[in-house]
Structures are given as structure tokens and as C-alpha cells.
């Protein structure tokens, strides 16, 4: 079974600074990988996804993520954060032909002025 680890529980970053959120997965083959964002009191919104092909994927809101098979990682990055990026970020992994997603524990991002 697959599992997801997000090593950072909480990250504080200054507005305008860069952001990187870590995600490591455990799965035998190449999984489907996702990053979701949850703003306070809201549901989850998909930022980006990786199924195959180019290992650097672009998402919404200026986010990108890079799949590194050798490190079993799918880290999320943004070059310059905005105050509105303060939220909970979840990495998730799914298997081809399977309906189930496994989520990491989430990383809380705080943006300071």
C-alpha cells in the first residue's frame, strides 16, 4: 500500500520569499501524485498533479512541483509567496486504476508581512 510523508508540519515564510514544501511517498511503481491546498474553513482545491511525462509540472496560483523518482519525492515550490498562500497544503498519492487517494498529514504555511 502507498503512503505519504510530509516532514514539515508548519512553515513560516515572509511575503515575497520562496517556498518549498516537501513530500515523500512510498509506492512500488510510479504513482499518481497530487498537491491540494485547503484555505481556512474551505474544502480542498487541486494545485497540480503528476501522472507521467515531464517531471516538472506547473499548477495554478504560480505553483510547480518536481517528481524525483530516485528520491521518491514530489516537492512543491513557489518562487514568491503572497499573503493569500497562507493555508494547509496536502500531498496525496494514488495508484493507476485505483480510486483511493492517500494523503499526507499536511503542512501549514504561515505568511508574515
Amino acid at each position, binding site marked *: 500500500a502507498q503512503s505519504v510523508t510530509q516532514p514539515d508540519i508548519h512553515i513560516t515564510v515572509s511575503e515575497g520569499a520562496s517556498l518549498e514544501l516537501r513530500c515523500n511517498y512510498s509506492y512500488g511503481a510510479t504513482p499518481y501524485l497530487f498537491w491540494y491546498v485547503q484555505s481556512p474553513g474551505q474544502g480542498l482545491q487541486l494545485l497540480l498533479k503528476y501522472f507521467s511525462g515531464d517531471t516538472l509540472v506547473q499548477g495554478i496560483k504560480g505553483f510547480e512541483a518536481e517528481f524525483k523518482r530516485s528520491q521518491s519525492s514530489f516537492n512543491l515550490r513557489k518562487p514568491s509567496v503572497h499573503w493569500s498562500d497562507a493555508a494547509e497544503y*496536502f500531498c496525496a498519492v494514488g495508484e493507476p486504476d485505483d480510486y483511493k487517494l492517500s494523503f499526507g498529514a499536511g503542512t501549514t504555511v504561515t505568511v508574515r508581512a
Partner: protein
Amino acid sequence: DTAVSQTPKYLVTQMGNDKSIKCEQNLGHDTMYWYKQDSKKFLKIMFSYNNKELIINETVPNRFSPKSPDKAHLNLHINSLELGDSAVYFCASSQGTEQFFGPGTRLTVL
């Protein structure tokens, strides 16, 4: 034009009561899900239906019973509510692997 909607948004009730949460999606998806998010924000899948058929049933107390009257709806009924049922419950739908989430229902059991 809400894609996945849930009602109610908030639900406060006493221990031992029975309550239902409703979910509707207008995306034409075949598969719908219920997730539970606990106080530490950990998300765990509970159930999934595909074309009204149950396909995922994780280790959930049988006090929880999902019902899918049609492809667009997946309701969650909870009997004999307990304090530990307090959480945010998310409905989601998918056509393939990408899942679209509803806004959540915050259930508080007193």
C-alpha cells in the same frame, strides 16, 4: 455553479443522536467519496461509490452508513453519534483519479 456541494455546512448535535449529511455533484462524475478530517487535519477516506455501487469501505464503525440514490448524490448517515465523531467530513467526486472536493461539513458532537 457549485461543482460539489454539501449540506449542512455546520452540524451541532448531542451524543446518541442520528444525523445525515448530504452531498451532490453536478460534474457528471461516476465516483463519489466521503473523507473524515480529524482535529489534526489528517484526511482519511471512509467510503467510495462508483455508479451507485460501494467500492471502498475502510475500517469505519457500522454506525456510519453511506447511501447513493443516484450517481449525483452520496449521503452519509450516522447513528448513535459519539464524541469522537466530531470532525470535518468532506465529500468528493471523480472521473478518473483527480478528485474534486466539497466545502466540508463540520460536525460537533456535544
